[in-house]
């Protein structure tokens, strides 16, 4: 795979040359350390496309489409795909490492800290209220994801069916994913004459 196979179109700034492995790791480590509050993808877009200029917007959207259709965390998948485009497999490895290391180290440390002070009622009140706030955040993520991928009534039916199976009938996620997934893919199967258009994911810039 040739890096930067697609030349940037229009008035976009020219891409920077692919970074060294060390610069690549550092770039992803910085993004992995600063992307607070969820929405890592918005930080990745600002970093990769606007600040470092390692990827053009078109490539970013294409990689994002791959990331979202595959299992794995979006931020990790995006790091792997862009790292591979930039510096081959060592780039993919170092990008994912840089992205995950800061959060993973902090959360490992947190387990030891919570193990010590986990029964403190103040920290319990704090964390419980954050979980409540996070429910609101998840609803926002769902609306944003939904506005991109829900086109026809059948799509909404697949959403409800999946959610009811998993959350209320306690069907294992794997069965719901494979079962409803196969049904939905069949529903959107390729038809002669009218090729279904892949949905274009769009992203808002991080403030």
């Amino acid at each position, binding site marked *: 795979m040739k890096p930067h196979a697609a030349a940037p179109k229009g008035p976009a700034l020219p891409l920077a040359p692919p970074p060294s492995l060390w610069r690549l790791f550092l770039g992803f480590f910085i993004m992995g350390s600063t992307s607070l509050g969820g929405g890592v993808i918005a930080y990745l877009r600002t970093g990769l496309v606007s600040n470092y200029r390692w990827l053009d917007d078109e490539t970013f959207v294409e990689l994002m489409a791959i990331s979202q259709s595959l299992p794995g965390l979006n931020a990790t998948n995006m790091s792997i795909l862009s790292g591979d485009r930039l510096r081959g497999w060592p780039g993919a490895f170092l990008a994912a490492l840089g992205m995950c290391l800061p959060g993973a180290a902090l959360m490992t440390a947190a387990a030891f800290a919570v193990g010590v002070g986990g029964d403190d009622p103040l920290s319990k009140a704090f964390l*419980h*209220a954050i*979980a409540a706030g996070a429910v*609101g955040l998840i609803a926002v993520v769902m*609306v944003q994801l939904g506005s991109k991928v829900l086109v026809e009534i059948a799509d909404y039916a697949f959403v409800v*069916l999946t*959610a009811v199976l998993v959350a209320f009938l306690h069907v294992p996620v794997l069965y719901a994913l494979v079962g409803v997934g196969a049904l*939905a893919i069949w529903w959107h199967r390729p038809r002669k004459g009218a*090729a279904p258009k*892949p949905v274009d994911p769009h992203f808002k810039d991080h403030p």
Partner: protein
Amino acid sequence: MKQLLDLAMVFGYISLLTVGGGMAAFPELKDLTVDVHHWVTFPELMHYYSLGQLAPGPNMMMVASIGAQVAGLPGAAVVLVAFILPTGLLTFGIGRLWNRLHDWPWRPSIQRGLGPVSVGLVLAGGIVLARGALTNTLTVALAVGVFALLMLTKINPAIPIVVSGLVGIGLYLI
């Protein structure tokens, strides 16, 4: 050793379910870590999830906390590798095949089909988390408030999340 193996199996399996984001696998994460293996209680799992909201990078790095609580540093390492490596290799491979898959007629069908399913899985994850987290009027109000604020403004999500926590402390103290 048996425990490390169990951790690897559970988190390797869960990682395969994270289509559309980490939240998609939350119902299964709760089932396996709380109800099947008793590694954490549901409140503990929620609290680690909350801490994950405050940590940088992908929120689901909170799985490292579960590994660490069960088996210390080796536990955290095993969980992280099991959670990231299998799907990472898959993504890497598909990413390289992508240009060849570009004209495959089923590719847009798969994307169109999996989109609604992943939204449904995130919704299910949200419902499971809400059952544990929304226990009274205040917590419901916090969730609705965060939702409204994020829908109406472009504020960084970290701010209302931290404010929620502070409101929780404030109401505990008065």
